[in-house]
């Protein structure tokens, strides 16, 4: 009597246990086998999913701890399914980036299970359990397997996000005492009339906001991110940015906006102000970085900022038209997926460079185009995707977000467009100093892409092109959910 989603959550856990007990020599291969299994079940879920129906599907509901309203309730709508698919994509991509040790592979698999849980759980207690379950493996992966400065980065990451979680947990306890339910759908229904009274309502809003803002992260709660992404091993950075960072945005969409529609409207201009700071300052800071990984990390902040721009712009005003709501939400969903794909690819390429050269400073390379044209070419595609070149995936999502946000937040949108420019400047500078000019002495021995790497990067890039040229197949996943959510938010 175990449902499809439960199986999906269990597979990586079984994989982690297998790695622990079996002590296989080639841990990565085992992890990849379990990933293949996960991917298969994720595709089954997609196949079973009725894209035309709104609301939750493939629901599993079991009583768990009735006295505190905790229920084992999992199910997917378009957004959840999209994130499940993204997770299933990013993990094998990350595993193939790097030969991680057995322990690291096991921790990654635990994190994967927790992510599946986070994206499918529909009861707060269960959701929070999974949400926190991602934190421990992430902490350990940075702390044990990270590079320079790993202790500092790991503790900072942990304390920062844990602090946010605590705030969120307190807020939900408050809500539970007032309303007596942890069910997401039930809470969303109560949101419009207010969940708590007076100051408590704002306190709960602030608590949940803080928890999620740290997770995304939103300016100025982002300072843990560059340190954490920089020091984590390539594969872990890919997962952190590709899948883990989506939990924050997901939480905003699933929790904060439905639960606090009135607070969002009042705080709207402030929230948008923070978002625009994220969008503009992050790529500026990225431009000033010498470390490629840090550069990509900062751009990640910028790209997730676009998601929140779309979300807050349509919910901060009650005047949003249906088309703008649909545009912004579709754009946000697509951007979540696109960012996962593209940012992971960028970390992958930085990892390839680091693996070859032993360093990853922007000045440690020069004239690579003459030595490794294929690596440069494919890496350029990922960079152009990230800077929003039409024809690649990034553009479609960003266009829709801006389309949606322009109507109600024109001035914020106009400033946010600067983010697109600074992102381009950052990548242009990186391409110039990495790829062009005379071949640097230290780079003369670097090898171009080998077959295994091509085997990884070609499908990922083709997916970027597919979404950029004909994105309908992705929209089909979540169109019904977009319509439903737009109605909820209106």
């Amino acid at each position, binding site marked *: 009597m175990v449902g499809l989603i439960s199986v999906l959550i269990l597979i990586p856990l079984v994989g982690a246990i297998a790695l622990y007990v079996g002590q296989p020599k080639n841990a990565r291969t085992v992890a990849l086998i379990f990933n293949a299994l996960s991917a298969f079940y994720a595709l089954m879920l997609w196949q079973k999913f009725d894209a035309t129906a709104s609301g939750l599907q493939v629901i599993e509901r079991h009583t768990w701890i009735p006295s505190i309203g905790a229920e084992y309730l999992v199910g997917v709508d378009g957004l959840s399914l999209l994130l499940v698919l993204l997770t299933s994509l990013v993990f094998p991509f990350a595993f193939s980036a790097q030969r991680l040790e057995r322990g690291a592979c096991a921790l990654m698999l635990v994190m994967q299970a927790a992510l599946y849980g986070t994206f499918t759980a529909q009861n707060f207690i269960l959701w929070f359990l999974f949400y926190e379950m991602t934190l421990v493996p992430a902490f350990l992966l940075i702390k044990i397997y990270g590079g320079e400065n790993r202790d500092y980065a790991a503790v900072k990451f942990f304390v920062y996000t844990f602090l946010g979680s605590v705030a969120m947990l307190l807020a939900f306890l408050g809500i539970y005492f007032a309303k007596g339910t942890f069910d997401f759908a039930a809470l969303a229904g109560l949101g419009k009339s207010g969940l708590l009274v007076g100051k408590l309502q704002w306190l709960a809003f602030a608590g949940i906001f803080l928890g999620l803002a740290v997770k995304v992260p939103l300016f100025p709660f982002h300072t843990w991110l560059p340190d954490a992404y920089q020091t984590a091993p390539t594969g872990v950075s890919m997962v952190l940015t590709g899948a883990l960072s989506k939990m924050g945005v997901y939480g905003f969409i699933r929790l904060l906006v439905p639960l606090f529609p009135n607070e969002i409207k009042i705080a709207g201009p402030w929230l948008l102000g923070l978002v625009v700071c994220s969008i503009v300052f992050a790529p*500026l800071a990225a431009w000033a970085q010498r470390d490629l990984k840090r550069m990509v990390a900062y751009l990640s902040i910028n790209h997730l900022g676009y998601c929140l721009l779309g979300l807050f712009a349509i919910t901060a005003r009650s005047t949003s038209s249906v088309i703008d709501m649909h545009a912004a939400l579709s754009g946000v969903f697509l951007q979540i997926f696109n960012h996962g794909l593209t940012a992971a690819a960028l970390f992958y390429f930085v990892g390839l460079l680091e693996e070859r050269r032993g360093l990853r400073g922007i000045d440690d390379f020069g004239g690579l185009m003459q030595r490794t044209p294929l690596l440069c070419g494919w890496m350029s595609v990922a960079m152009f995707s990230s800077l929003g070149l039409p024809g690649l995936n990034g553009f479609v999502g960003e266009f829709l977000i801006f389309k949606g946000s322009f109507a109600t937040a024109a001035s914020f949108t106009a400033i946010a467009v600067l983010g697109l420019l600074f992102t381009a400047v950052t990548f242009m500078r990186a391409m110039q100093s990495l790829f062009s000019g005379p071949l640097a002495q230290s780079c003369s021995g670097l090898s171009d892409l080998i077959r295994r790497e091509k085997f990884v990067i070609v499908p990922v890039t083709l997916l970027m092109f597919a979404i950029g040229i004909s994105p309908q197949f992705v*929209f089909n996943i979540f169109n019904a959910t977009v319509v439903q959510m737009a109605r909820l938010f209106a």
Partner: protein
Amino acid sequence: MNSWITTNVWLIPAAPIVASLLILAFGKPARRTSVAVAILGQIAALTMSIFAFVPTLRSHGFRSVQNFTWFTFGEQALRIGFVLDPLASAMLLMITFVGLCIFVFSIGYMAEDKNFSRFFAYLSFFSGAMLGVVIANSLLLLFVFWELVGLASYLLIGFWIERPSAAAAAKKAFITTRIGDMGFFLGILWLYHASGTLVFYDGGRGCLEPVALSAIGSSVTLVALLIFCGAVGKSGQFPLHVWLPDAMEGPTPVSALIHAATMVAAGVFLVARVCPIFLVGAINGVTTSLTVVVWIGVVTGLMAALIAVAQSDIKRILAYSTVSQLGLMMVSLGVGGVAAGIMHLLAHGFFKALLFLGAGSVIHGLHHEQDIRKMGGLRRLMPITFLTYAIGMMALSGVPFFFSGGWTKEEILHATSNWPQSHLPHYLMLIGVILTALYMTRQIIYVFLGNRRTASENAHESPSVMTIPLIVLAVCAILFSVILTPAWPWLESYLTGNAAHFEPHLLIQPMIVVSLALVAAGVSVGIWIYRRAGETDPLQHAQPALFRFLENKMWIDEIYDRTIVAFSKILARLSDWMDRNVWDGLVQDIGRIGQFFGRVTTSADERVINAGVDESTSGAQGLGRLISRWHSGQIQTYLGAVALGMLALVLLYAWLG
């Protein structure tokens, strides 16, 4: 066949793009193969353009659109489409024809390059993207191709990637045009918001059709100006013109195709395409947005012509000349001469490609020498190049009757003289005509006439694969004038959708005489100044300060470097610094406060509550010890402490609140 192409017009850009992908997909194919694929793609596009041209002749004001849904988001459909009308069709023919000439020329010019195949792949990709811009029936689709054109331009300017100057120029081009494109992007968003559609023509509901236009309301001026930002970037208009002369770092055929004949004209094309938006609320054909277009064009046209007089790199002179001519076209569009502007664009495409390829032939013959002061006397050594170049020069200068440029320029001057707002643009453009004749005369004298100088010693005429395209383009520069004359203004009628009548008495117009006089003045002043020119420029002798000012491009690059660029860099460093010290510093300060509380707790534990009283105290003491052990001066201990401190505070507040 005809109706088949009008419903499948997308095949025209698809052919070169497919060719490009084929070349790239096969890694490093043999040179012959890649050339064959590229040229076949281009010929296919040209053939289909001719077929597409035929139906547009049948009826005046022909327009065929195919709109379709790109994707559905939520319950909304995003529609895009393709359009075939006289404007698109004329552009298609020019781009594919000039493109083909340049492809053939490149076979000779790039013969020794080690990345020969990649060059043709990029060139084909460019061609396809540019054709897409022309037939797009949606501002969004136009923007998609517009950006792809920008990408192709970036790749081709930086084609010789091992040269740092080429890489820098490519980066500069991409970023400068993107600055304009951000405005364009906002314009698209605003138009979409205000009119509800981005499709140009949609059976009465398109954004260029009256219903949607009237829905835009008072914001229409801003929408138009934002869209114009994109045109300013792409067409090298002041103040975003700085990238175009630097773009000459690319191989010369690239300069000819992209930075002279086609891509830079995309901005002019864009304004012509969305002209109805600029015209909303026009009184006598004058609107605020069009007035801005006129003045930007005037400033650009005159400034670039002045700078061109003091340049010594053969390609840079032509680059500034291009900037100047694009300014002229903008003026024409702004004063209401849309057809005249587009006619000049088409004519310019032929003769400027001719001039650039001629310059390429010279550079090739002189083993990559580009300084005109080191050339001289090439007329005997490179007779075909010389003759064709002279034809190009006369077309560019605007010599009437026999050369296409003469007629179109005359049309533009005619249009400016009728502008009700002000006559100043007209007179300034007349000065521009003199300057154009002057700098072209200077170039011809330096390069082809006089005695041979250092670089001319081992010069040789280029192979026929390069000279034949020159001859073809030269013939076009002359023959094209047949359909431009006021006596039989076929092209103008075709573009505006009226019938052309043959009226020979219109051949002699007052403006023709004026043009002729001005060109003659420019040429004779040029001959008089430069007849005995040595390796230093006579103007440099006469007016050293002025010459230096112009030679250094009015120091605009330097001004940008020290203001906008420097400011952005400081902003970037500041963002980084703020991140490290202010935002992160704040977090660490909170950590320190938490650590302080931790210390207080520890001491309270030890002094107030004695050890071993009851379980809870020992627990707290254990915690206290833990905290004091963490107190190692490391940041993480502070952060650990802050978590606990904050937790306690929030708990307290939550229970009390």
